[in-house]
């Protein structure tokens, strides 16, 4: 029997399969379909210090083998998460990551201080939000900006810190190195790719915000390349995501250097995708005579 257990960032994951932020809520809805405790971990819906009602207009747009979204971080805020969602999430026997975003340094500080006092296992830091003090450019574009915020947060954060990288970063290897140097315990990538859809009849952008984030199988080859680049540049564990729909896709990410993976859009396509993947991953390893994923990690 294959051993799927992964030790990373000081935590023990029962398998490398987590669910990605924004595609899984806080686990409650999926727990009506299957036992979510089988997962390696759950990344919460992206949280901000204060609740947000999200973006106006169309929020979803299908593309050939892809999904664009402009939800706008609709979430109940950190306090409400801690009070109403986390206790139930902690009753699931799996690693719980709080995904935290911010629009200025202070947002992040406050969020971290509050999460420090909870029994959340891991903080996944979303640095793809626009930084209001840098003319709206996201924290995750320039590695110097990312280094600055991650190193400040590392000093105050009592939890393992996994930084979620944007594929829109100027240089993904430099970004990974900057996060490692700033003290990140791990990195996850890729967040959605900034993309554009146009309604030619209305002669305007589909989304009120013009640009939206692209995910799904169409981004997988790009995600694999970036995961490989990042994994070759740092020693901290890399959590790979981007278009994973099957156990075969997971194997590709592991071969590209990922220690953990996340299922995102796949949760929408077939709600029990993660269950299939975990089962098929074991089967694949048994069939191939692989005892531990270490044997194939980063072989490309």
């Amino acid at each position, binding site marked *: 029997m294959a051993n799927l257990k992964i030790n990373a960032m000081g935590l023990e994951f029962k398998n490398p399969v987590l669910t990605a932020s*924004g*595609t*899984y*809520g806080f686990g409650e*809805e*999926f727990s*009506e*379909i299957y036992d979510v405790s089988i997962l390696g971990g759950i990344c919460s*819906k992206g949280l901000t210090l204060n609740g947000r*009602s*999200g973006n106006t207009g*169309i*929020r*979803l*747009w*299908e593309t*050939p*083998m*892809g*999904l664009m*979204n402009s*939800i706008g971080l*609709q979430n109940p805020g950190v306090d409400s998460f801690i009070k109403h969602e986390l206790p139930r999430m902690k009753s699931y026997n799996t690693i719980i990551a709080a995904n935290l975003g911010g629009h200025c340094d202070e947002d992040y500080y406050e969020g971290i201080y509050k999460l420090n006092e909870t029994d959340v296992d891991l903080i996944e830091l979303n640095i793809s939000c626009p930084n209001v003090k840098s003319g709206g450019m996201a924290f995750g574009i320039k590695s110097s900006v990312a280094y600055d915020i991650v190193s400040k947060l590392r000093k105050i954060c009592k939890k393992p810190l996994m930084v979620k990288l944007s594929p829109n970063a100027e240089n993904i290897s430099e970004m990974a190195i900057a996060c490692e140097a700033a003290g990140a315990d791990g990195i996850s990538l890729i967040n959605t790719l900034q993309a554009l859809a146009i309604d030619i009849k209305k002669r305007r952008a589909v989304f009120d915000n013009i640009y939206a984030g692209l995910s*799904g*199988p169409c981004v997988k080859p790009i995600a694999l390349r970036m995961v490989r680049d990042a994994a070759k540049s740092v020693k901290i564990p890399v959590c790979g995501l981007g278009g994973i729909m099957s156990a075969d896709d997971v194997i590709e990410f592991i071969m590209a250097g990922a220690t953990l993976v996340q299922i995102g*859009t796949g*949760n*929408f*396509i*077939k*709600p*029990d995708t993660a269950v299939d993947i975990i089962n098929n991953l074991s089967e694949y390893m048994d069939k191939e005579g692989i005892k531990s994923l270490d044997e194939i990690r980063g072989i490309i």
Partner: protein
Amino acid sequence: MKVVKSRIRENIKISNRIHRLTCEFTGDIKPGQFFMLKTLDNSFLLPRPISVNDSCDNTVTFLYRTEGKGTTKISTLREDDELQLFGPLGNGFAIDSLDGKTAVVGGGIGIAPLLYLVKALGKKADVYLGFKDSENVYLVEEFRKYADKTIVVTEDGSDGEKGFVTDFISYKEYETVMTCGPEIMMNKIVKNCLENNVKCYVSLERRMACGMGVCLGCTVETKSGNKRACKDGPVFSSEELI
């Protein structure tokens, strides 16, 4: 709710661009609920939300209009093919607490889910159905079997009454109005119900990805903040809506 591979019993065109799909499914379904449907190949990515038109003898029936590549692909499936069903989803119409007479008002493809509702309400319901013209009329005979009275309205008068269905409802006769159809029609019904102090429930359609309340793509603004059409709806009391 569950996700299953379901065998198709029938998938045929019944009217202009409207198809009837019957699949095997075992489980309780409430009127107004929907399923996410997907072909098993990867010809399109996201499952399509389709409301339940009927359910009996371990089957579920959907009526859908071919609009884009998803529904067009679904229309190519044949008897004994399989497809992915996820559901039933959403709250459905609250029919247990109804008093008095109910008007059920549908327009276009929004008529499809109302048959299952009318079957559940029986003779307590009068049905008002709005179509563009006689070429697009469907399902009327089925409604006549179950409803107390069925009124057909076409915009050009080529079948039934001429005009808009909203102009033929005597609101004062009803305790409750339940509706599904184009937003412009439902907006008018909500306004008329408010003026006549009639309870009103609307079934909303939104673009959605997950169908189960996690992607937050199908947001509906309500007096108590953002709600999810897929999970908190698709049926909303008009009092909740802004």
